Each structure stands twice: as C-alpha cells, then as structure tokens.
C-alpha cells in the first residue's frame, strides 16, 4: 500500500484562493482538507456603518456574482426596515438576478469546467479529438462562442442596473431604475439572440420547450439521441464524454443538500419578512438530508470556527456571529487550517449536518411535493440523482439544466413589468431591526444577516455558497461537503491531479486553488501543482 499527501495550491479556474490537501492511498483520495487562503473581513468593514452600506460593499465580495450579493443584501435591509416593495421592483430584481446567473452558466462551463476535459491523460479515449476540438481553452470552437456570448445576459442586467458587475441599484423599497418600453424590448431582443445562438443553437440543439419536456433520466438519455442536432449539441457531447472518462463515477459528497431559494414572487412579497420568505419563493428553499425534506429556517443556521483562523471554538448563529481573526500560525497550532468558517444547519432529528449547496441542491428542492402555483416544480434532477447519484457529471448537468428554466422566467417577468406603475416606495428608516436576506447565486445559497442598532450596523454576517461547500471540518470533525466529495476520487497522476480539479470545478467554487503533494510517511513535499496554469 502506498500513501501520499498531495497539496493543490492554488487550484486553478476558481474565483479566489483555495488550497487543497489530500492524502492518496493506492491511487485513491482517502482524506482531504480544503484551505481558503485569504482573509476577507467584509463583516468587520461593515460594522458601525450606515445600514445601506452592504448594498455598496457586499457586491464587491465577488466579481462574478455581485448581483446576487446585492439581491440578498437588499432583502436583509428590506426585512430589517419592514419596507413595502412594489411588484415591479421585485420583477426587476428577479430579472437581474437571473440574468447574472445566465451569464455565469456558460462562462463557468467553458472557461472553468471545459479546459480540464481536454487533459492529456484522456488522450486515448475514443472521443478525445472531438473534446479538444470543442473545449480546448481559447481555440476550441465551442469555447469561443460560449465564452463570448456569455456577456449577453449581463447586458440586460446593465439596462436595469446601469452596469454589471458592482451595481447597487436594488435599494430598500425597490429599485433605482424606472425602465422605459425600449429597455424592455431591447432586453427581449438581447436574450432572444442569446437563446438562438448559444442556448438553443449550440448548447441544446433543440428548442427550450422541447428540452424542458425532460422529466426523468431516461427522458434525458432518449433526448440525447433523438436527432442529429441534439446528439451533436454541447450538452449531449459533454454527457457522453464524461461517461467515457469516468466523471460519472466520483465526486459524490454527502448527498445532503440545502437551498435558501430565490426569485421572490412579486405579488406575494410586497412586505418582505423573514418568516414570510419561504412561501413567497419561486425557486424553493429547503433541506434534503437523510432521504427526507425539511423546511428551511434561517434560525437553524450556525457557523462553526473550530478549524478556522478565528478566536475560539464552537458555533454561533450569524446574528450573534463574531469575526475575530487570529494569526494563521497560531491557528495552525490549535488545529485550524482555513479562513473559511464551517456553516452548518441543525436538521431536526439529525443535528448539525454538513450540507451541499448549489444547483444540485436547488433542483433537489424543485422535486419536493406540494409546490404552490407560483413555485417551480421539476422532478428531473431528483430522478437523475436517485438513479445515477451525485457526481461530477450530474452536478454540472443540474447547473446547466437551470439555463432554459431561468431564461423562461426572465422572459415572463419582462412581460409582466407595468411601466406605468411604481418601481420604488420610499421606506421609513427605523433605527433598529434585524434582517435576513438570501438568494441563490449561480453556485448556491448566499445569505446576509444584519443587526441594526442606533441607525448603524451593529453586526453583519455573510455566508457564501463557497463557505457552505468548501468550509472545513466542524467541532464534531465532520468533513466539509467538498472535502467529503474528494474522498474516493481516483488520482491517476499525482503530478497532474486533474480529477481533483474536476471535483472542485463541479461545485464552481469561487476560490483559486493550489495542490501541494506530500509524502504521507515522511511529510516531504513531493510536488506543487497549479491547476489549469491560470
């Protein structure tokens, strides 16, 4: 038996800094540690500031999902202040949130997931030439159009938000813009062009309506071979290629999921409250753990810092959350190894279970029975997971499955905007309050908790999807969800551990990653590998 430790530092093609350390025994990952290498401290910046400061600052946490940060930061203040939000404003917020995610999907697929699909170790697989022709970075035929056209959905964001990224146009009580008819028609035209050229033309090879008839895994497999156009689509080819190179065989994770949901119903959430949120969601919230569904309740969320570079141990609810950083060198002496906290959820009867967030989690919730008329019901991904399991392939399929669904929603909201009605209602600004705002960024549940006292921010905590997924072990030594997903992954070549990149990229984490290789017995560093060379 041979055991070695591998440290990937930084893992490439993620949006920040992530180090991955793995122990490999006989060519299979047997243990893993994910290490967020950068301290952010936005919570500390925001303390003592104007209650609306989060609208300026939190969109700057991320360059790819800043609009999602704005969406939830705004609802955090809406709920704390008890605002009235006109239905038009909610529609515009939803359009912007969805368009940002529509940008992220193809950009993620071709720029982050795609390049490793052409790794040299797959050169002997039968379809390698075709994979390289499509997905090779910069020169691949699909890469070029996919990445270039991904800018179109955020053109629509800019029409309403002025710019993407880093707009602050969603404000308590509504939105800043008051669009005109030409803004609406221009948005339709941009999105129709994008759907015709990329979504239907290149990705699906069929109409959105045809694709969304898929209800089961068998439907999907039949769809792939229904005709030449669908067979040759990027989606069908990607699926076949993943099966050829085994991406449907690892990256499972816990199989337990959390979604906080997004897209508030314009009519049902005119008076945003924390308690009224679940019922007003179009894309539903919930927990799926131990084979059962549970309602999401923000009061059950905690962040555990036992293994994170913060003072102390244990877990706190974000309204009581503390961000008190310590020197990583001192932290390491206490068994701490990352800047990420470990978000956990107290599942009734199961306790503090690590939960995966992201499109797979969202689509698992979409299968939950008893959806209201305004809520998304969609059994496809649940059916797929129950038949072939969570893995690198199905995690990516769940993500891309949302593109046609979001597209359809945006078109509907655009059609419902009433240009002669209000887009904003000036709110009262009470001096104290507690708020919770949340959404689903492309990569998963994204939430803010705000406490306002004396007209200033007394406490502010952000939990990002990447923290849920790449967070470390907790006080009970449970692995974080992505750490768990690495375990069992094969590593054919420790000098180029592309499998680790594929697991990490299937989550689309927003951190840049590095792998370091260590000999498990001597602790000697064997190799340092920067994935993707990015």
């Amino acid at each position, binding site marked *: 038996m041979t055991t070695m430790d591998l440290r990937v530092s930084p893992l490439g093609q993620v949006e920040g800094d992530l180090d991955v350390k793995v122990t490999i025994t006989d060519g299979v990952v047997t243990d893993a540690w994910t290490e967020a290498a950068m301290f952010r401290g936005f919570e500390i910046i*925001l303390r003592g500031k*104007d209650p609306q*400061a989060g609208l300026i600052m939190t969109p700057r946490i991320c360059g790819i999902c800043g609009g999602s940060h704005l969406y939830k930061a705004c609802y955090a203040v809406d709920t704390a202040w008890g605002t009235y939000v006109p239905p038009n404003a909610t529609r515009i917020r939803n359009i912007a949130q969805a368009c940002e995610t529509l940008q992220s999907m193809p950009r993620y697929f071709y720029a982050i997931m795609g390049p490793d699909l052409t790794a040299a170790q797959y050169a002997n697989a039968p379809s390698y030439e075709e994979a390289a022709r499509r997905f090779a970075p910069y020169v691949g035929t699909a890469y070029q159009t996919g990445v270039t056209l991904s800018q179109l959905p955020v*053109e629509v964001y800019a029409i309403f938000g*002025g*710019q993407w990224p880093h707009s602050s146009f969603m404000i308590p009580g509504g939105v*800043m*813009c008051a669009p005109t008819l030409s803004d609406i028609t221009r948005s339709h035209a941009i999105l129709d062009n994008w759907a015709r050229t990329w979504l239907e033309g290149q990705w699906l090879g069929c109409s959105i309506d045809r694709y969304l008839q898929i209800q089961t895994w068998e439907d999907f497999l039949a769809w792939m071979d229904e005709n030449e156009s669908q067979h040759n689509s990027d989606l069908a080819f990607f699926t076949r290629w993943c099966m050829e190179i085994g991406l449907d065989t690892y990256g499972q994770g816990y199989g337990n999921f959390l979604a906080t949901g997004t897209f508030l119903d314009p009519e049902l959430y005119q008076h945003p409250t924390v308690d009224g949120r679940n019922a007003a969601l179009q894309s539903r919230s919930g927990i799926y753990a131990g084979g059962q569904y549970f309602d999401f309740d923000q009061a059950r969320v905690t962040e555990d810092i036992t293994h994170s570079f913060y003072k102390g141990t244990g877990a706190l609810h974000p309204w009581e959350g503390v961000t008190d950083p310590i020197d990583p060198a001192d932290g390491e002496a206490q068994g701490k190894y990352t800047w990420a906290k470990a978000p956990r959820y107290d599942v009734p009867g199961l306790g503090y279970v690590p939960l995966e967030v992201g499109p797979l989690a969202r689509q698992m919730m979409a299968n939950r029975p008893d959806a209201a008329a305004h809520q998304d019901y969609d059994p496809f991904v649940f059916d797929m997971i129950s038949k072939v399991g969570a893995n690198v392939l199905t995690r990516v399929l769940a993500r891309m499955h949302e593109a046609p669904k979001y597209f359809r929603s945006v078109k509907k909201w655009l059609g419902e905007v009433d240009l002669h009605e209000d887009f904003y209602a000036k709110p009262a600004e009470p001096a104290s309050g507690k708020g919770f705002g949340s959404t689903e960024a492309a990569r998963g549940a994204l939430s803010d908790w705000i406490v306002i006292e004396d007209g200033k921010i007394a406490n502010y905590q952000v939990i990002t999807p990447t923290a849920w997924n790449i967070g470390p072990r907790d006080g009970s030594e449970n692995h974080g969800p992505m750490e768990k997903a690495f375990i069992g992954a094969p590593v054919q070549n420790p000098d180029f551990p592309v499998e680790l990149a594929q697991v990490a990229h299937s989550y689309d984490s927003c951190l840049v990653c590095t792998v370091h290789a260590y000999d498990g017995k001597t602790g000697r560093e064997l190799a340092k590998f920067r994935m993707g060379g990015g």
Partner: protein
Amino acid sequence: MRTGCLFYEFGCRGPMTHSPCNRILWNRQSSKTRAGHPCTGCTEPGFPHGDLAQGTVFKTQKVAGVIPKDEPAGMDAGSYMALAGLSRAVAPQWSKEDMFVV
C-alpha cells in the same frame, strides 16, 4: 427615477468623478447614472466616500442642510448654487414630467 438630477438629494458623485462610464458604457448598454443610479465615485481615490458612515449612503452631504459639501472642480459653492437655482427656475414644464415611458 426618470426625472431630475441625482446630485442634489441622492449623493451622486458624478460631477466630481473622472470616469468614462457614460462615454464607453457598461456592457455596451448603459451606466449607473443613465439607469437612475447615483454615481458612487468608485473609480476615485477615497471610495467608498464618507467611509459609509451613518447617513452618507445615497444621501447628498450638505452644509446647513442646503449647500452640497462637494462641488465639481472649478466651482465654488455660491456659483454652483446660483447656477442650479437658475436652471431650476427656467426649466420648462416638460422637463419635469415623466414623459419617456413608452
């Protein structure tokens, strides 16, 4: 909002900001101020201005509740206020109406 200037009430830093947003456009489509969003001066030294202190976000900082604390380069408070007052006084009625909806 479709009417009025963002500078006087909403903390717009457009007059003090040297940035080509309205010339090159964001995402080939628009800019903050075109979309009714007060400029936050995010390309200027000192951003976020006013350190995001209580009462500074999307609110124009004024002296004695009337005169904006910051004016564009080359302007003093007196002449800027006189110019603004004159502009307001002579603005035709149509410029105050919400006439560009459809």
